[in-house]
């Protein structure tokens, strides 16, 4: 039998990583006019994406040579040429410090080997089964807290919690440890800005997962950690350091992005009531609504790559050693690929794939789970919150942030049950 190890809180228990994290993502209400302006000028522009929106210096990357790559074709070129545009050097100084030796910080051939093993646990047919067994109970439990009231803040009371609680359920975490887990998962990101709580949180999560892995190897169950501890591809298992690093990243890659993606999906539909009505009338529109929300306001606006050789992008020379701000948001709002790109329109036809989950070998491992979670959450809300609408007595939702975008509140009214 597994005895869940105790997760240690930060020594300074008054430290609030959520406030610090919010400061680092900024409060930019609308980065798109600036993104369009830059993309219209050139697909390659010197400087960093971040510095377009904040004066706060970037202690980790600010001194490094950087360019922004903008527009669908240029962004896709960077993402799909991993032998030139590498991950290891791009992410070692930031995510590597927080999570350790994860697949995000690897390139081929190491990345190819481990990626295949992880992906096996997150293939569509695997995660589809979690919809009913894991996601639905979490969604239902959270909704019980407000369904009788006829009003709620869907961010504070729902989306900010459900993807994280899905992960707690998958790793069979004691619910009482959930808040500490969430806090450490956010605090570990602060390694990249030099705060001591960052490595402290990474160390505590690492100790917790190492002990949990030891127990799950001895007594495997049906949970995700037991599965990852024993899954093989081409006869190879995952080494402990790679697996512990992946589990550290899972909270942020799987929890934080789905929280933002679902928040944006609900905001988009509620601020476009005609499209919400169409989805209510025809649930087969849900996949299109999810893809359009991911395109319109993807959870991550820009990602990094490192240029390993002298090369060029769409005729623009790039020197080896340059860090590439690969602006996913500009690709997803490229007017050449998506007419009227700033418009949220679930009825778009014949468009190219959006790049919200990136492309190429580092395409998001959890994309299929994210879609399952968003689908289940939206269906449950439409089923159990009839006459759903924005609360006219509260401020309208405002999606903010230049890198990781989300509204802080989404106040709604509905018919109580």
């Amino acid at each position, binding site marked *: 039998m597994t005895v869940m190890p105790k997760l240690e809180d930060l020594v300074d228990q008054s430290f609030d990583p959520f406030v610090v994290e919010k400061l680092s993502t900024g409060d930019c209400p609308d980065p798109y006019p600036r993104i369009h302006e830059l993309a219209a000028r050139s697909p390659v522009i010197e400087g960093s994406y971040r510095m377009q929106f904040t004066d706060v210096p970037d202690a980790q990357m600010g001194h490094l040579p950087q360019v922004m790559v903008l527009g669908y074709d240029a962004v896709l070129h960077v993402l*799909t040429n*991993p032998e030139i545009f590498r991950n290891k050097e791009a992410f070692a100084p930031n995510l590597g410090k927080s999570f350790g030796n994860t697949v995000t910080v690897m390139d081929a051939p190491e990345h*190819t080997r481990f*990626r*295949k093993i992880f*992906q*096996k646990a*997150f*293939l*569509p*047919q695997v995660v589809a089964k979690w919809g009913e067994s894991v996601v639905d109970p979490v969604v239902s439990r959270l909704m019980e807290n407000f369904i009788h009231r006829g009003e709620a803040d869907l961010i504070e009371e729902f989306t900010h919690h459900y993807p994280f609680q899905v992960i707690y359920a998958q790793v069979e975490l004691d619910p009482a440890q959930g808040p500490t887990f969430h806090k450490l998962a956010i605090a570990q990101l602060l390694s990249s800005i030099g705060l001591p709580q960052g490595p402290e949180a990474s160390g505590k999560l690492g100790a917790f997962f190492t002990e949990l892995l030891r127990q799950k190897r001895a007594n495997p169950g049906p949970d995700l950690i037991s599965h990852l501890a024993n899954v093989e*591809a081409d006869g190879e298992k995952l080494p402990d350091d790679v697996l512990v690093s992946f589990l550290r990243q899972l909270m942020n890659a799987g929890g934080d992005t789905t929280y933002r993606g679902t928040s944006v999906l609900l905001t988009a539909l509620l601020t476009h009531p005609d499209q919400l009505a169409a989805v209510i009338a025809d649930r087969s529109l849900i996949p299109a609504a999810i893809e359009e929300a991911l395109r319109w306001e993807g959870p991550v606006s820009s990602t990094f790559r490192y240029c390993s050789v002298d090369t060029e992008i769409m005729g623009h020379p790039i020197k080896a050693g340059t860090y590439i701000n690969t602006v996913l948001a500009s690709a997803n709002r490229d007017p050449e690929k998506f007419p009227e790109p700033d418009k949220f329109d679930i009825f778009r036809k014949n468009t*190219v*794939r959006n790049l919200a989950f990136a*492309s*190429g*070998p580092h*395409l998001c*491992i959890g*994309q*299929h789970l994210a879609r399952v979670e968003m689908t289940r959450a939206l269906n449950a809300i439409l089923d159990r919150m009839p006459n759903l609408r924005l609360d006219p007595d509260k401020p309208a939702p405002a999606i903010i942030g230049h890198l990781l975008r989300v509204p802080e509140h989404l106040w709604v009214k509905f018919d109580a049950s």
Partner: protein
Amino acid sequence: MKAWMCMNCGWVYDQATGDPMSGIAPGTAWEDVPDDWKCPDCGAEKADFDMEEI
């Protein structure tokens, strides 16, 4: 139902749709997809696809 799935990312090849962006016309059977074709989502080789239950 079974289909050819990319083991690197989970993308599924649908014969009815093909992969027009890569020059694979709708209706092209899996056997007729060239060996040097790559997964349109992640760039994995055709050899990285397996027949999976979906």
